[in-house]
């Protein structure tokens, strides 16, 4: 398939004695929305941090557009490849401004590494207008600590959208969000797909995930136990049933 965006082959990652991921292989096509589901400790977040470059795998191969990634896999390389991530912990600096948080690690710089503060402010302002920040009282100079949980999530998502990802990864994006805000996040994900990008997301709410995803990858104790198109699962209940079956099978063995 030539619309393959990312492919992982036999990825293994352990932390000390804990095997977080065991021979995980999966692929993400373009454009599609993939729901990554599994129980607590299934390895979802680890898998996402490998995709986003925070962790380099112990072994296994990563392919981008069919080409194998050589050398050390890092966040900077993932960013360069158009992979943007909204982490579960939001990855924000609460004592600093919205503008600084949007550009952290990728500051707009001029000569001598001097940061173009003015330009960053303007870009952040434009972005906040586009995304539709709920309250007009916020400016790019607002300190993140003064924002609510949902608003902080908004900053994290805005940041990912700003850099126009080819692959947008969201770890529990709707956690702590109201229903309307959740709908908004989903509309961002659908819009990204309409623009030709792909989305991978983790949700604790399978019913939500079922509504929006095209495909599901089910993880259980560090292995991919199932990859299935939405058309092959009749309902969210069926998906939950699959998960339970795998969990039971695992415990029985």
């Amino acid at each position: 398939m030539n619309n393959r965006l990312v492919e992982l082959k036999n990825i293994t990652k352990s932390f000390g004695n804990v095997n977080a991921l065991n021979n995980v292989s999966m692929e993400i096509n373009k454009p599609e929305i993939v729901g990554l589901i599994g129980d607590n400790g299934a390895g979802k977040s680890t898998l996402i941090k490998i995709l986003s470059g925070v962790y380099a795998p112990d072994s296994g191969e990563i392919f981008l557009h069919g080409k194998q990634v050589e050398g050390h896999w890092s966040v900077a390389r993932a960013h360069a490849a158009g992979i943007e991530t909204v982490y579960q912990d939001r990855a924000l600096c609460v004592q600093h401004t919205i503008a600084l948080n949007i550009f952290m690690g990728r500051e707009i710089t001029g000569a001598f590494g001097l940061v173009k503060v003015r330009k960053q402010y303007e870009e952040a302002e434009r972005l906040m207008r586009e995304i539709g920040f709920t309250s007009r009282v916020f400016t790019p100079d607002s300190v993140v600590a003064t924002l609510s949980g949902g608003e902080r999530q908004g900053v994290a998502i805005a940041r990912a959208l700003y850099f126009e990802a080819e692959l947008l990864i969201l770890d529990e994006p709707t956690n702590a969000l109201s229903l309307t805000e959740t709908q908004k996040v989903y509309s961002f994900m659908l819009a990204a797909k309409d623009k030709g990008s792909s989305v991978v997301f983790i949700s604790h709410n399978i019913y939500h995930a079922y509504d929006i995803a095209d495909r599901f990858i089910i993880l259980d104790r560090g292995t991919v136990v199932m990859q299935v198109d939405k058309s092959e699962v009749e309902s969210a209940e069926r998906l939950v049933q699959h998960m339970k079956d795998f969990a039971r099978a695992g415990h029985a063995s």
Partner: protein
Amino acid sequence: MSASAIPTPAKRRRTRGPLAKYLNRNRRAISALAIFAVLLIIFTMANPRIFTNPITYRAIFLSLPISLFVVVPLVFIVASGEIDLSFPATAGITSWVFSAAVQSGWEPVAALIPALLLGVVVGLVVGGLVTYVGLSSLVATLGMNFLMRGIINMGTQGVAIQFPQMRTTALWQAFAGRIEGFPVINGFPVHMLWGLGFVALGWMLFNRHRLGIRVQIVGDNPDSAAEMGITVARVKIGAFVFLGIGAALSGVLSVLVNQNWWPTTGDGLLLPALAAVFVGGTPTWGGIGTVVGSSIGAFIIAFIETGIIGAGLTGYVTQFFNGLVIILSLIGHRFNGRRYR
């Protein structure tokens, strides 16, 4: 973590004018300035004749730059979430290299180079111990301070190096001379200009350069920094290298001003410089800091030394007064703006 996801509109926060914004953003530096103003009023009331005489301030200008060169980089260290106690010995050992080179016939300007290089190396070693080896910066730098001072003591056997001819050199003229034409204070000390220039550079680096911005990010939340692709270790090592360079400049300046290098050079900096950082409004918990505020802090600390004597009190009061100012100013900063973490 706030659970309320629907933000209540407008009335929750009032919009501020540009002046209010400016004051709010710089409130830590401004409160440092306020502390200085209070001290100035107290001292002037105690002895109006001394504290309206510019000569008094000239005495402060002579010693202040030596501490500014370490206080400014210390703001970076503290904002990055670390601490450093090794800079006094770094100042000592780098200025020793400078002094030994000059003594063996080097041109002072040329002798500055190995001193600065050693400062960079010390910064790399300390930063490497803290980041890659993962030692606590408090303990690692305490150890490095003893270690380097020990090397000085073993190497010199306690013998000082004197430079009676130092005033004739080009480096002295450029770095520690005086600008003629200020008859009231008998010439303006050049190194005060260097000190102020260094503060300006530090401000630029901290607030407008990628290094300073990332120092603040790393100090605020190292996990977030790593998730957004910042190499935390590299940023922290950068801060330690900056301190190494600052300590070298401080040590060499001290040698130039005193025309003498002692095996104890730099030792007296430790507590006053750290006090200056915190009195000036850089908080201990990392993530934020103020170069200008902490420089004012250095001025406050230097001012107390001179002020106590000038106010007609004995030198025995200095430490008590220093302590009082530190505690009171910290209380002031505590109530001046919320702590978010």
